[in-house]
């Protein structure tokens, strides 16, 4: 068959089903847009960290790194340089800093280095011109950050590191020479000696980057491991990228899970839209087969349908997804930025584009070809044979199929919660199988109730609902409603569970004292920067309302490829961890072991990496490696790579430092935390680098940060709901418009506009009511699946609570909005002229 003929046939048929086709395009595009936008934000986060890391380390091969912020002695540099095979070694001091200008403050990673590092490393450092600065006491900041804090070149800024504040001079930065991807990276660069002064770390380094001679990697690695002596980390120079990818994995996984469900919902919208035109296309196939078209020719004709649908949907999906990623899915790392320098550059990879186009084409092919597979591939015999009587009642088969799918879902839930997407698929299949039975039952029940309802409209609505000729369309509409509500309920409720879980962590971790005092700066929101707390502690303890001041210690610690959050509350704290965060082990035993010392509570993910069980001993890779035992297993406390809880005294021993990272202040009974906080601030002085927060304020900050980190999930759940309402309305509108000839018939029979309009509303109400209520009920099952998957796959704290309110809300919102919107095309459709029915 010639291409021009296939194209002509396509164009001709398109005219008659443009609405359904547009609707199908809308469905697939929505799914693709969500997938693409979440892909872009994931690749942007991971990619920008990788770009920054590569920009810093260039062709360096290895790094010798300290395990804490105190660093190591710079004299190790000469030992490293003397390892055979080392071509070059560059010392670096890294510290989390807060740069403060007239317009505000920004958290940056301060990188102190030398000209030799600038020569050997990547573009980031070379272009910042460290070589020119070697002797200067100045700091170089990306222009965007300097602008944000209201400073420009040759003006001074305040640099706060830990509990220290020092002024520094900004020097010109050359944006023209810096790659766009790196120009906005939160990195401040200073000469090594000056950085050491700013950080109060004279003679200390945090890493040494090493370049080895060709074929000497092994020798160099062995030499570095010898020098590290188990107290420093030896790893690839660009290891930050690996650490970040691991850290971002749970968020990517949860976003991926939600996006996949959204894409599935979008695809099912499209599929249902295409179902509306199945009878028409089946007639076409029948005609083509009668006229001698071969199976291959028919597939060619239909494949062009799928091709056009797939291409148009993919293009629109990509454009819409790009807009989404720009406007909504800002690659917001939330609290991950506390532990990693993350650039703000948007990165779109070819693999993301290819994935979306492939997804769009696949969805279009399945949508177009699957409903017609019987018509295309049946033998002549079965296709044209006069049908015999059906055996038994088809509804029993549907019920049996639904029961089978439900059983499969329950098995997945019990045995393999990580396979949530498969579970959602089997749940959707069960829903779709159950729907025809429900609609038949509702129609039957309503028919019996009719006697009590006045007017012809309900009577006509039931007749229309029970007409076999309308069955495919009715089912498609009800299925769209069911899937829309199912998707939005499942996503919204499990998202709610996740937020509630994080809220409980925020509450449990912060309410151990009345006030918190810690170095300021957004990057220190988790209190991970140590400082010399002795003078502040003494000042605070003297205040009249203060009952006690206790030392809290915490930091990040790299364990394998996980940058874990170390939480070390004071030993005597009553509840060292929120009770609902424990996933294995007894809470009483865990708390008493915490108080006794020598025990840690670790996230399940960290434990499973190291094959640890409750009671096992292991060597914690802290600056002073220490053997500890596992008291219990916990969630990740909202920190994606995992967390470790131990008492502050064990921490001091394992880190070899008594510096706290926060002061926990208990107030005397009756003292208002807000007023006490004000007193503390004035006692510490206006220029103090420490900030004072009430437990409630700190909890709110935690919650806000958690929400920010999960903003993509919130946006997805809102978009699914909007898409559901629009899809429903569009679908019903299209269906009502197709019904005009039938409405004209009824007008000829004497029914007036009002009766017809009310009939349409009754019919829509019954269909949507059935579909949406079933969708809401199944949505609650979907919530169980997704929430369990989130706990199992991501390790996030998830607090399961039945989402009945959300289910009822989504049901009401989708069905009512759709009915209100349907009332408009319904009104127009009932204006049809009776003459339409009489035309031959």
């Amino acid at each position, binding site marked *: *068959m010639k291409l021009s003929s296939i194209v002509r*046939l396509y164009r001709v048929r398109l*005219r008659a089903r443009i609405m359904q086709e547009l609707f199908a395009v809308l469905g697939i595009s929505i799914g693709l847009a969500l997938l693409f936008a979440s892909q872009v934000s994931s690749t942007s986060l991971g990619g920008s960290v990788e770009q920054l890391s590569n920009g810093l380390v260039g062709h360096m091969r290895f790094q010798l790194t300290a395990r804490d912020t105190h660093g190591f002695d710079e004299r190790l540099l000469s030992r490293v340089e003397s390892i055979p095979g080392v071509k070059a070694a560059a010392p670096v001091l890294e510290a989390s800093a807060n740069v403060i200008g007239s317009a505000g403050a920004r958290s940056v990673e301060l990188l102190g280095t030398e000209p030799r590092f600038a020569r050997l490393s990547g573009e980031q450092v070379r272009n910042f011109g460290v070589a020119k600065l070697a002797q200067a006491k100045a700091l170089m900041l990306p222009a965007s950050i300097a602008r944000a804090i209201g400073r420009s070149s040759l003006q001074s800024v305040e640099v706060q590191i830990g509990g220290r504040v020092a002024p520094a001079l900004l020097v010109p930065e050359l944006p023209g020479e810096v790659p766009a991807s790196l120009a906005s990276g939160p990195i401040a660069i200073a000469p090594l000696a000056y950085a050491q002064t700013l950080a109060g770390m004279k003679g200390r380094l945090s890493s040494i980057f090493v370049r080895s001679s060709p074929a000497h990697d092994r020798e160099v690695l062995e030499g570095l491991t010898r020098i590290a002596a188990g107290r420093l980390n030896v790893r690839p120079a660009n290891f930050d990228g690996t650490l970040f990818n691991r850290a971002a994995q749970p968020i990517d996984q949860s976003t991926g899970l939600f996006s996949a469900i959204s894409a599935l919902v979008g695809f099912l919208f499209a599929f249902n839209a295409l179902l509306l035109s199945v009878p028409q296309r089946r*007639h076409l196939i029948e005609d*083509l087969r*009668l006229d*001698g078209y071969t199976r291959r*020719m028919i597939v060619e004709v239909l494949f062009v349908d799928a091709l056009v649908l797939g291409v148009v949907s993919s293009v629109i999906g990509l454009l819409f997804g790009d807009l989404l990623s720009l406007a909504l899915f800002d690659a917001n790392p939330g609290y991950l930025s506390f532990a990693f320098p993350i650039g703000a550059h948007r990165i779109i990879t070819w693999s993301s584009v290819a994935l979306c186009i492939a997804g769009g084409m696949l969805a279009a092919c399945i949508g177009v070809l699957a409903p017609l597979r019987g018509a295309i591939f049946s033998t002549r015999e079965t296709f044209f044979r006069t049908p015999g009587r059906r055996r038994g009642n088809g509804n029993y088969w549907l019920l049996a199929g639904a029961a089978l799918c439900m059983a499969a879902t329950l098995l997945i839930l019990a045995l393999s919660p990580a396979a949530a997407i498969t579970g959602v698929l089997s749940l959707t299949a069960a829903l779709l199988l159950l729907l025809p039975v429900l609609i038949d039952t509702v129609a039957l029940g309503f028919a019996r109730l009719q006697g009590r309802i006045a007017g012809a409209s309900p009577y006509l609505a039931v007749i229309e609902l029970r007409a076999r000729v309308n069955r495919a369309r009715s089912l498609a509409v009800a299925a769209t409603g069911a899937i829309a509500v199912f998707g939005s309920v499942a996503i919204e409720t499990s998202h709610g569970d996740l937020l509630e879980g994080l809220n409980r962590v925020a509450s449990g971790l912060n309410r151990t004292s009345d006030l918190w005092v810690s170095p300021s700066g957004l990057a220190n929101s988790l209190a991970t920067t140590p400082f010399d707390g002795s003078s502040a502690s003494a000042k605070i303890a003297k205040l009249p309302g203060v009952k006690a001041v206790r030392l809290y210690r915490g930091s990040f610690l790299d364990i394998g490829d996980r940058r874990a959050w170390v939480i070390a509350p004071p030993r005597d704290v009553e509840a060292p961890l929120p009770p609902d965060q424990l996933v294995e082990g007894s809470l009483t035993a865990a708390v008493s072991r915490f108080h006794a010392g020598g025990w840690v509570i670790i996230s399940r993910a960290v434990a499973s990496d190291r094959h640890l069980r409750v009671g096992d001993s292991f060597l914690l890779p802290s600056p002073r490696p220490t053997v500890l035992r596992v008291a219990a297993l916990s969630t990740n406390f909202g920190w994606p790579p995992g967390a470790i809880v131990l008492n502050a005294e064990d921490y001091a021993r394992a880190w070899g430092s008594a510096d706290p990272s926060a002061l926990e202040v208990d107030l005397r009974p009756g003292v208002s935390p807000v007023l006490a906080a004000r007193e503390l601030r004035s006692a510490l002085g206006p220029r103090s680098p420490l900030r004072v927060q009430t437990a409630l304020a700190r909890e709110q900050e935690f919650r806000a940060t958690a929400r920010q980190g999960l903003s993509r999930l919130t946006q997805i759940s809102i978009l699914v709901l909007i898409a559901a309402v629009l899809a429903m309305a569009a679908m019903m509108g299209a269906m009502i418009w197709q019904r005009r000839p039938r409405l004209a018939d009824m007008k000829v029979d004497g029914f007036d506009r009002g009766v017809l309009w009310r009939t349409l509303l009754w019919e829509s109400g019954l269909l949507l009511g059935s579909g949406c209520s079933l969708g809401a009920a199944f949505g609650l099952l979907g919530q169980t699946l997704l929430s369990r998957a989130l706990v199992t796959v991501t390790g996030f704290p998830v607090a399961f609570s039945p989402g009945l309110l959300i289910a009822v809300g989504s049901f009401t919102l989708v069905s009512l909005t759709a009915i209100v919107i349907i009332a408009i095309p319904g009104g127009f459709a009932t204006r049809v002229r009776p003459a339409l029915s009489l035309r031959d």
Partner: protein
Amino acid sequence: MLELRELVKHYPMVYGEPVRAVDSVSLSVARGELLAIYGPSGSGKTTLLMLIAALLRPDAGEVLVDGRNVSELSARHAARYRMRELGFVRQAVNLMPGGDALDNAALKLMGGDMGAREARGRIRPLLGRLGLQERSAHRPEQLSMGERQRVMLARALSTEPKLVLADEPTGNLDTQRGGEVLCLLQEICRERGAAVVLVTHDPHAASYADRVQALRDGRLVEYEPSCALAPVNGR
């Protein structure tokens, strides 16, 4: 041209005896001849046409077209046979709603090796012959039922088939319009020397045929015009 030999087709039923849709039917149709097969609904007329069109396989017997048994053709060869040698005019007028009369009539030509433009050009004279010259750009909903049926006729005749099967082609038309369609069918097929098998339950339509045979409960019986007008089975 067409010869049916002891053709049998039974439909198995879940409950009860199988339905004998076509039972030992033998007949032949010569080139240029119009044979009408008259029978009431359910007598097996459409099944018989399906067997001739190689859309169904007989349980026994042969369908010979120019001496070749088409019921043994593979799916692909059967499709080629329908495309090149057969024209099928059916009762249900399923025109593509988005296409005009030209598109709908040229559908079969487009399925061959002809491009869309060429196919539309080729079908024009035939549409003119069928009285649709002025209506060729009209869509199905703008055509009357008789015009739609003529578009279907044009599609069936577009490939100049040597055998035309017509399944109740006037079922939806009044006597006058039905007569017009049948006259055209008769005229064109006679000119082209094509054999026509027309199945109908309308004695008036059967009267246009060169020869009429009746089908009752799947078996060919002698056609008696006086009985044809009487109710079937005495009802």
